[in-house]
């Protein structure tokens, strides 16, 4: 199985350890993983700001980079959702193949690989449900719906030896990152982030994890400003921890 590793641009630039962990984890689980080096960004920063019409070149590039793979896997629910919903290109067949075959990391492990996780992370951890993964890709059940609960990322975390997963007061409230929302609506964005952080802190977590580094980057910025000892860690890093 050839897997194309799609690394979100800000992860590539600011959180290389998350991409390394994703790569190692997928290899451990038996995938042949390739990182197409001409990849850049899914185009979501422009599209969510109302400039989807400027994402044509990004789309073409994306299709060129990823159309040949059996699966495309990304350690971000948000970027995956954007591709699933909005990728179109001159090679529409290629685009369609990608839209069908792109997976967020935890759903790929759960639904395609279906393999147990062997990892150790002896810490108290809070799971941040990022909205696009949860409500967009449906990797976890949503608290608004009258429907049976499940969570793909939490099921994986529960297999990690030593890991203690806390229950939050608000299990799926948005952190307030929201792409360019985080700067154009700075006051509300920060307040939402502070409230998320305090829910985790209140429950005594050592780490906040999640399937989207963008939310975690926002929460990390707030934790650091508060001089908090609580750290953020992408779920790939935990699932890859030995």
């Amino acid at each position, binding site marked *: 199985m050839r897997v194309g590793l799609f*690394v979100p641009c800000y992860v*590539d*630039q*600011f*959180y*290389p350890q998350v*991409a390394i962990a994703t*790569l190692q984890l997928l290899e451990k689980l038996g995938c042949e993983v390739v*990182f197409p*080096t*001409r990849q*850049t*960004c899914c185009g979501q*920063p*422009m*599209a*969510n*700001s*109302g*400039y*989807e*019409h*400027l994402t044509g*070149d*990004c789309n*073409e*590039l994306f299709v060129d980079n990823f159309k040949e793979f059996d699966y495309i896997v990304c350690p971000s629910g948000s970027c995956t959702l954007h591709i699933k919903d909005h990728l179109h290109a001159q090679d529409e067949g290629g685009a369609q193949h990608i839209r069908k075959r792109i997976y967020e990391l935890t759903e790929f492990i759960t639904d395609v690989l279906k393999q147990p996780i062997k990892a150790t992370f002896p810490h108290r951890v809070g799971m941040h449900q990022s*909205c696009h993964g949860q*409500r967009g890709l449906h990797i976890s059940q*949503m608290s*608004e*719906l*009258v*429907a049976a609960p499940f969570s793909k990322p939490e099921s994986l975390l529960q297999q990690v030896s030593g890991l203690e997963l806390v229950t939050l007061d*608000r299990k799926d*409230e*948005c952190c*307030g990152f*929201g*792409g360019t929302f*985080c*700067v*154009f*609506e*700075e*006051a*509300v*964005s*920060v*307040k*939402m*982030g502070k*409230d998320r952080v305090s829910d985790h802190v209140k429950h005594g977590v050592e780490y906040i994890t999640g399937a989207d580094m963008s939310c975690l*980057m*926002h929460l*990390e*910025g*707030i934790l*650091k*400003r508060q001089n908090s000892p609580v750290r953020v860690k992408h779920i790939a890093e935990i699932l890859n921890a030995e």
Partner: protein
Amino acid sequence: MHSDKTHSELAEKFNIDEPRVNWHDETLWWIRQKRDKAVWQLPEWESLREAASQIKHNVLAHLSEYLEAFERNAIANGITVHWAADAKEHNEIVYSLLQKHGITQMVKSKSMLTEECHLNDYLAEHGVEVIDTDLGERIVQLAKEPPSHIVLPCIHWKKEEIGELFHKYLGTPEGNADPQFLTHAARLHLREKFLTRKLALTGVNFAIAETGEFVVCTNEGNADMGAHLADVHIASMGIEKLIPKREHLGIFLRLLTRSATGQPITTYSSHFKQPRKGQEMHIVLVDNGRSVQLGREAFRNSLKCIRCGACMNTCPVYRRSGGHSYHTAVAGPIGSILAPNLDMKQYADLPFASTLCGSCSNVCPVKIDIHDQLYKWRQVLVQDGYTPKAKTLAMKAMATTLSKPGMYKSAGKVGRWMIRKVPGLVNNKLNPWYKQREMPEAPKQSFREWYAQNKKK
């Protein structure tokens, strides 16, 4: 409620008092939790939502036929039906009825449509005194403010502040903030108005095409008090308030209040079908942009809204910015997809006042794809030129960089180097991220550089 300030500016002001933001957030979250408890009592909840959504879909697809049927049946019941193309016409119709009867004082129960039409201001200019009889609306009216929430108009007011307001206007003892006492004072104050006013205006929650009747839902019975005591009853309704048959009402009544407040049903679900002897009953059917929205395919579903307010209670942005930050009659997520239809320039900021988290669409009892429509409004507003030029330039530069792998790679490398060497370039007041958050650390090596070194064959 026009404002020169944008949602983000008004929200920033709201956030100066952080304990109050916490209180506002927790109050509304408590209502969201009440809603959750109520809907989990009904195993058929999701199918009820689907049924309501489909019924409204049918209504919107055949709106003109249902409107004509409703008019025909209402007239046969003895109701006078008026058509208003816009807010101005609506207000003029109401005023002409007041003039016809020589009435200068009236009572009004909750109607967000009259807020949308700015009826109170219009009538005040024409020398008519309007008393809002919904308790929450009366409170904000005394405070000379618009409602901040469509179901809970004074949710941003604390009981102590209401005590002070009542002391000033209703003569209650200073320092008394006991809700039961204050409610009793309001009851006495309003009772006198009900008994003396000759004209009552109500809103309409549901209008039934096959019978020509309409239903008004209140918890306080104030619509009934007004309508039953007045010689003239005017009901103002948006043209989207229709449902085809009486048998559909059960679905909507079960959804409405569970979504709104977590109650199984409103205390009063009052059916009005014909005027009583000697009474005049009027219905004003108001378009005010609705038929334009009906023509916008991507946004048509927004007209399914039954005004429960669940999207506001669940919205993490609304809870932390307050209803007034939306500077429009209907605030929150639903308001943000309705308002740009009325005035794109004035409300260009609202579709951006969201993280697109999607919680609103999940609580919506008629399954409006609210967060998808917010995304779509952003595209429309940009295409039609309602975004700042600087933002457009920045986005173009970003799109160019991200579509050229070489340029992206060097921009990233240079950017990270600068953050490491000259942190002041980003860690300064001009960077909104840095104001209350630390920047992420800039590593020496990007993933792609690591990959080239360690993995690439």
